[in-house]
């Protein structure tokens, strides 16, 4: 996955997932529809003006169409801090390439330079540039020093539902429990947790195979006595391991 990685002076590193050109194109399609709807609505409203003065009504309509087509992206991204309707729907956000605050002039430049990104049609220049760019930037983004990221949303894993607070036979052996915590890497722990979270998404056969492999891996790292593991299905074994890794020891 393409990421924008930033390391703070405090030594903390964080990353933003970059939006793919396809997702951005979808967001742009939504925005194009919004611009079209706004323009039509404005035209309908201003038609009333036409009964008073046709020339004036036409002039105002032209100004409104122009302002909407040029200004929509600028105003929306400024007001919503890097988002338009399309970007909000697809959870995308424009941000400064160095992780600094997004400036108004950056928003203006990236939106005005759509004029060259759209050439010769259907964002061919911009699309090609973002495919070739390491940070998926179109020409407007390159000039404005901006990137489009996927905007994160917090979702807390429901551990109660995953491990259900049942009796955990592995907890009878605290020294082995500690050894298991020590030997499993963060990445392996995350894999076990993710497997449990997504368990209902797997086909039955794949689910059995996956949990057999995961349980086998855990068993190989720490050997619990037979009385703690006998009659435990592979999935339950993984469930108990996750319980040890992620839940506070309840005494």
């Amino acid at each position, binding site marked *: 996955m393409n990421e924008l990685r930033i390391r703070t002076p405090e030594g903390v590193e964080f990353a933003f997932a970059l939006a793919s050109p396809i997702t951005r194109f979808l967001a742009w399609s939504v925005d194009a529809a919004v611009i079209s709807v706004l323009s039509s609505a404005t035209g309908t409203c201003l038609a009333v003006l036409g009964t008073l003065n046709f020339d004036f009504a036409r002039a105002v309509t032209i100004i409104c169409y122009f302002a909407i087509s040029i200004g929509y992206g600028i105003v929306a991204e400024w007001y919503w801090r890097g988002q338009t309707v399309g970007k909000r729907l697809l959870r995308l956000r424009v941000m400064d390439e160095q992780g600094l605050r997004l400036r108004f002039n950056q928003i203006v430049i990236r939106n005005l330079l759509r004029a*060259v990104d759209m050439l010769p049609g259907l964002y061919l220049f911009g699309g090609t540039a973002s495919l070739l760019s390491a940070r998926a930037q179109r020409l407007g983004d*390159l000039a404005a020093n901006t990137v489009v990221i996927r905007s994160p949303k917090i979702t807390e894993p429901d551990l109660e539902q995953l491990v259900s607070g049942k009796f955990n036979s592995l907890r009878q052996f605290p020294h082995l429990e500690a050894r298991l915590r020590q030997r499993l890497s963060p990445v392996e722990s995350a894999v076990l947790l993710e497997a449990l979270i997504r368990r209902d998404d797997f086909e039955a056969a794949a689910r059995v195979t996956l949990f057999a492999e995961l349980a086998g891996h855990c068993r190989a790292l720490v050997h619990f006595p037979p009385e703690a593991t006998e009659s435990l299905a592979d999935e339950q074994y993984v469930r108990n391991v996750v319980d040890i890794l992620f839940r506070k020891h309840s005494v």
Partner: protein
Amino acid sequence: MIVDLQRFLDAGRPEWAELEAILDKLETDPGYAMSFEQLRRFFHLYQRVSADLARIQTFASEPEICRYLESLTGRAYAEINETRERDARIRPWTWFVRDFPATFRRNIRAFQLSLLITILGAVFGAVAVGVDADAKAAIIPEQFSHLMGDPAKRVHKEETRTKDPFKNFKATFATSLMQNNIRVSILLLAMGMTWGIGTMLLLFYNGVILGAIMLDYIRAGQTAFMLGWLMPHGVIEIPAVLIAGQAGLLIGKVLIGGRDRTTLKTRLRALGPDLMNLIGGAAVMLVWAGLIESFFSQVHQPVIPYAAKIAFGAAELALLCWFLGRRTSGEGTH
């Protein structure tokens, strides 16, 4: 060691929410200023969230929480490490009478190049039409089809017209001109991303059209008509287009780099405010030019004598030169 995730979430959530609320406030209200105590608290929260991020990255790779904390850290980092001035409240008048001319003068060489390319184009267009009368048809685009005929016939038609062809159409015509010219200017700016080549080609082509039309009218003995028709709006419109070209050429210059040893990103970052000032100023000029072209330029002798129109155009040009060339108070601090 793996952290207890639920406890970690419960302990951290209040401070995460507090930091998020401050960030929301900072990002939505440009005028929001924190007291010293609030700043200290803000910095403390940033450090706490950074530490939480470091913990969760090290101990329990939980992707969703990790991404959330990365987002918070990133937003706070942007506020704390931003050394550029915050976007000031918008002051359109100050911007137009001070910032725009100052930016123009600071980058005068790009404007001079923009002017030179247009003059070269005009000379080329004039020579082409002078050498081969048929070149006019090839040079002048379809949108100017009314200029394809004999200039003398057009002048006669305009001067003997009893009905105003733009009656009940002037406002529409003015706004159409404005939006078309502003679009062309934005394109001139944007084509700077082709290392300035696209901007140069567009400027040259504009010059070619201008030169071809001017020579056509001069050769037909209609110089006074041509000046009276073009000058009132042209002395503003053409410089506005040149300024948009100036902005495009600046992008090209920054992309090429030359002797500047700073990185491309640094150069582009520094150029941003100048580009916005130039294209914004050009847009304002084009609004004025559109109004003049629709309501004044298209009214010919005998209604308005050519001398008056030429004098008006000359006065506008003198004012424009003064406006763009004058030094304003507080300049030089940028």
